[in-house]
């Protein structure tokens, strides 16, 4: 026993240095090409310096030489899991600038598509989160259910992910005759599947141990770092654009902004799970009441915005997405800026993960739900 004590005492005297490890740009948990320069002492993370730009595609510069309807195509490629919300943001911005009032039918269709996109995005986030923490089963469950939503998208507009469905003045095509039935069938099935998700992952002891009280972000920090979406709401930052600056059919539906002040990894996880239920409620309120009418208003062949600056905010699955258009009256924007939620969320990572183990970093990053093209643009 005394010998053993000596060993313990001697380990205290071992000199440990801080060292740097590159996590990424090819690392499964970064979900794309992102490099984190991690300063470690043993297994403890001291500091994280994210390095971005590996897939910077110059979308903002490209937009300056193309027409407004073409801009919408490029927005799919940023946050490809919230493609429809990004499309809608640009479409809404153009409609506000031209003071075009879209028919009610368009508002309903857009909102249903928004919420279906949010469900699909959260499903993928959930299954990948499980996989990041070593539970491969979730991956198959999530992808199985997401497939139904992608099939609905495909039938509606011909694309599964890069939808390009919202256009200035409405949507590109009317909904398929099967649309309402398929959505209702899917919701009925998915409501049975969601409790299964909880059984698989939420209540799991290992999962709980790895997420509870890990990666704390205070409300002040969430606001200061601009962390929006479920990640920000997990810290008590009320930032749901659907509530505060409602657009499309959101003023017509009843839903709750899920908020919690605990601010740890598990809270961010739980809020996303609850948001899926809210999305289901929103779709249920709208799906049977889609008004008759046109699916788009007739716009001029060449869309030209009046001179001035226009800003539109929408809520994507990751947080607040903004489009800032500066127009000089021509058919292409003078300057366009996309405020992507992932960009601001990523840089708060150091605040959350410093002081935790490197394995916790993976869990924390997972609840930020990063999409790298959204950050790099």
């Amino acid at each position, binding site marked *: 026993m005394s010998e053993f004590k000596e060993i313990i005492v001697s380990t205290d005297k071992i000199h440990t240095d801080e060292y740097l490890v590159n996590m990424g740009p090819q690392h499964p948990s970064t979900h794309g090409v992102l490099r984190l320069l991690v300063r470690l002492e043993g297994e403890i993370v001291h500091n994280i310096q994210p390095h971005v730009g590996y897939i910077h595609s*110059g979308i903002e*510069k490209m937009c300056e030489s193309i027409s407004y309807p073409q801009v919408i195509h490029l927005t799919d490629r940023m946050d490809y899991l919230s493609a429809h919300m990004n499309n809608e943001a640009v479409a809404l911005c153009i409609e506000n600038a031209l003071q075009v009032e879209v028919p009610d039918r368009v508002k309903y269709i857009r909102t249903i598509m928004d919420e279906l996109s949010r469900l699909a995005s959260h499903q993928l986030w959930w299954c990948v989160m499980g996989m990041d923490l070593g539970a491969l089963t979730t991956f198959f469950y999530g992808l199985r259910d997401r497939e139904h939503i992608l099939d609905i998208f495909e039938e509606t507009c011909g694309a599964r992910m890069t939808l390009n469905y919202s256009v200035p003045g409405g949507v590109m095509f009317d909904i398929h005759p099967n649309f309402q039935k398929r959505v209702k069938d899917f919701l009925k099935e998915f409501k049975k599947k969601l409790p299964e998700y909880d059984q698989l992952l939420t209540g799991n002891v290992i999962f709980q141990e790895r997420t509870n009280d890990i990666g704390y972000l205070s409300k002040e920090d969430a606001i200061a770092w601009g962390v929006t979406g479920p990640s920000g709401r997990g810290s008590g930052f009320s930032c749901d654009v659907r509530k505060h600056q409602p657009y499309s059919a959101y003023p017509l539906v009843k839903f709750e902004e899920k908020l919690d002040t605990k601010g740890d990894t598990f809270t961010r996880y739980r809020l996303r799970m609850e948001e899926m239920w809210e999305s289901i409620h929103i779709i249920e309120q709208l799906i049977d009441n889609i008004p008759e009418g046109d699916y788009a208003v007739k716009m001029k062949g060449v869309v030209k915005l009046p001179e001035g600056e226009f800003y539109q905010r929408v809520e994507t699955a990751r947080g607040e997405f903004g489009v800032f258009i500066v127009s000089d009256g021509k058919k292409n924007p003078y300057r366009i800026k996309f*405020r992507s939620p992932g960009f601001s969320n990523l840089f708060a990572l150091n605040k959350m993960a410093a002081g935790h183990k490197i394995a916790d970093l993976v869990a924390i990053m997972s609840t930020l739900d990063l999409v790298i093209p959204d950050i790099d643009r």
Partner: protein
Amino acid sequence: MTNEELQAYLTGKFSNAEVKTGKQYVEIVVKAEDLHETAVQLKKTPELSFDYLICLTGVDYPETMQIVYHIESVEHRHVAVLKVNTADRTDPKVDTVSDVWQTAKYHEREVYDLLGVKFNNHPDLRRLFLDDSWGFPLRKDYKDEVRIVER
């Protein structure tokens, strides 16, 4: 506060700034040397408490490089746009606001990377996306040698 109330309050509060009605939000245009103090006041004044920086970006106009800040108050839920016109378009310099709104640290790095705006007192002003050998692509006089943008 509504936009009208906000405009009236801001006009009284900031005598050296130009407060005007924008298309959607109230706009506050300040000189580069007043920027930091105005930002601090916008955040610290309890009636305003603009604590959430939504978006920070730059626009290259023919005569000036303009930096645009979209700010919101979480408590009061009003939004305003803060604008600063730099004196020199080719070598623009403004003070950093990263000590007021932390998220500005990386948004400013992006603006520096793509527009070449130097932020005084920035803790870590390096390029974010691109290599040092690139020009500043979002400037209007940028030569697109690899013909990525214009075909």
